[in-house]
């Protein structure tokens, strides 16, 4: 039974011992630990949230940058296409003008050639006429050296004139 009997003296000492422990631990012990841990939890919480926000921002940025890149690519394609078309146009124009120029040159050259040819022909003709005149003079001089022949000739010519008049009439 003596095990079950509470003892007044021991209760008294327990009051002192536990009182000291209780006072010290409540004042300087556990609240400091729990408060600090709670603060740490808040800190970790906010850090995690911050990290999440940063990640979201990063993802957004990435999306934006992708959109930008896609747009830039499109623009580049468009520019390239336009440049290509422009080039073709320029080349075609150049071709055209070149062709025109060439044609002009060609025409001019052709005209020149024609002109020169005509001139050449003219001079040749003149030369030939001169030559033939000279030749004819010489021939006529030879032929008309005797009187008979002269006469014959006159005859012949008169005939011919007559013939020509007849044919005209």
């Amino acid at each position, binding site marked *: *039974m*003596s*095990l*079950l*009997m*509470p*003892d*007044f*003296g*021991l*209760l*008294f*000492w*327990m*009051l002192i*011992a*536990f009182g*000291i*422990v*209780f006072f*010290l*631990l*409540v004042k*300087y*012990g*556990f*609240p*400091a*630990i*729990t*408060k*600090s*841990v*709670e*603060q*740490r*939890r*808040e*800190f970790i919480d906010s850090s995690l949230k911050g990290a999440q926000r940063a990640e979201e921002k990063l993802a957004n940025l990435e999306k934006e940058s992708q959109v930008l890149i896609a747009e830039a690519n499109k623009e580049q394609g468009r520019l390239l296409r336009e440049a290509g078309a422009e080039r073709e146009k320029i080349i075609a124009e150049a071709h055209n003008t070149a062709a025109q120029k060439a044609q002009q040159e060609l025409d001019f050259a052709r005209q020149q050639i024609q002109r020169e040819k005509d001139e050449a022909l003219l001079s040749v003709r003149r030369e030939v006429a001169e030559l033939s005149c000279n030749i004819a003079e010489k021939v006529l001089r030879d032929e008309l050296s005797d009187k008979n022949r002269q006469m014959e000739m006159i005859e012949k010519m008169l005939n011919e004139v007559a013939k020509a008049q007849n044919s005209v009439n």
Partner: protein
Amino acid sequence: MRIKGLSIVFLTLLMLCHTGLGNGYALSSASHNNTSGTSEEKGEINVQEIIFEHMLDSYEWHIAGDIVLHLPVILYSKTSGWHIFSSKRLHDNGGHYLNFYPAGIDSPRYGKLMEKMDDGSFVRPLDFSFTKMALALFINALVLLLIILPVARWYRKHKDGKEVPNKFASMIEAVVMYMEDTVIKPCIGKNYRKFSPYLLTIFFFILTCNLMSLIPFFPGGVGVTANMSITMFLAICTFIAINAFGKREYWKEILWPDVPTFLKAPFPMMQIIEFLGLFTKPIALMIRLFANMMGGHMAILVLTILIFIGFSVGNVLGGSMTFLSVAFNIFLNVLELLVAFIQAFVFTLLSAVFIGGAQVEHHK
């Protein structure tokens, strides 16, 4: 692996010390017997006496063999006033000093000093003696403070929680936050901050006392939580915490519970039941902790005493008993480590539940 090896060494040490202590007591009991006045002849083993000597409070602390720590005896008698003397005087004087004699084994206050009156009757004086249990209490309190306060100091210095605590602090923090998050917060609810330091204090106090009582040599080995006075004190603390801070709803449930009217008026049957319930809760707390801790200590003691009983019959029986006892004692000591935690946990848990019950704001 290292921890495993350490624990085996520790257990072996524990075993040796238990048997060693038992031995010391068995031997010293022979010289003590004439003083305590109980019958014992020819080295017979008085099991009850050995157990009582271990479980009960005493005015001195046997450390080992002949080394005894004599503690101050402080008595107040209505007739003769204050008496303060060392328990060495009791020891030197054959157990009694002045008019003070220890109560016999059949007395409910066995071992406590009684004052012998002039007419030959014994009267109990007020006994404030700084006994073995009281010293053990202060040692345990010191150990607890030395564990918690430096850790708390670190946390006070690093308030913002942006630094990693050292290993020991993290270990204490893990236990503290485990209790706070899984026991105190869910059991009490939104007012938990007010009670959390108290509940943590009783948890760590009981845990420290339980674990210290498992150490079989000097600073430990005293089962303070296996003592009714201590558990009663703790239960009274919880009783105060429950009722001093009880909310209106809690008192309404006691004085005018939500039951059919004929149960509460004109004869206040429910009120009487509820009122009794106020006291059964802390009493259950008190008995549970006391009985569990006492039971464990008693089992270890009895198993150890079996060795000496065995040897008093014969060497063969003694040898086999030693083997058996050591095996069972290892098991029991490990079990007691578990019980030490569980009982501290259960006391705190139930205290938190009872306090939480008194904090209910609105009942459906």
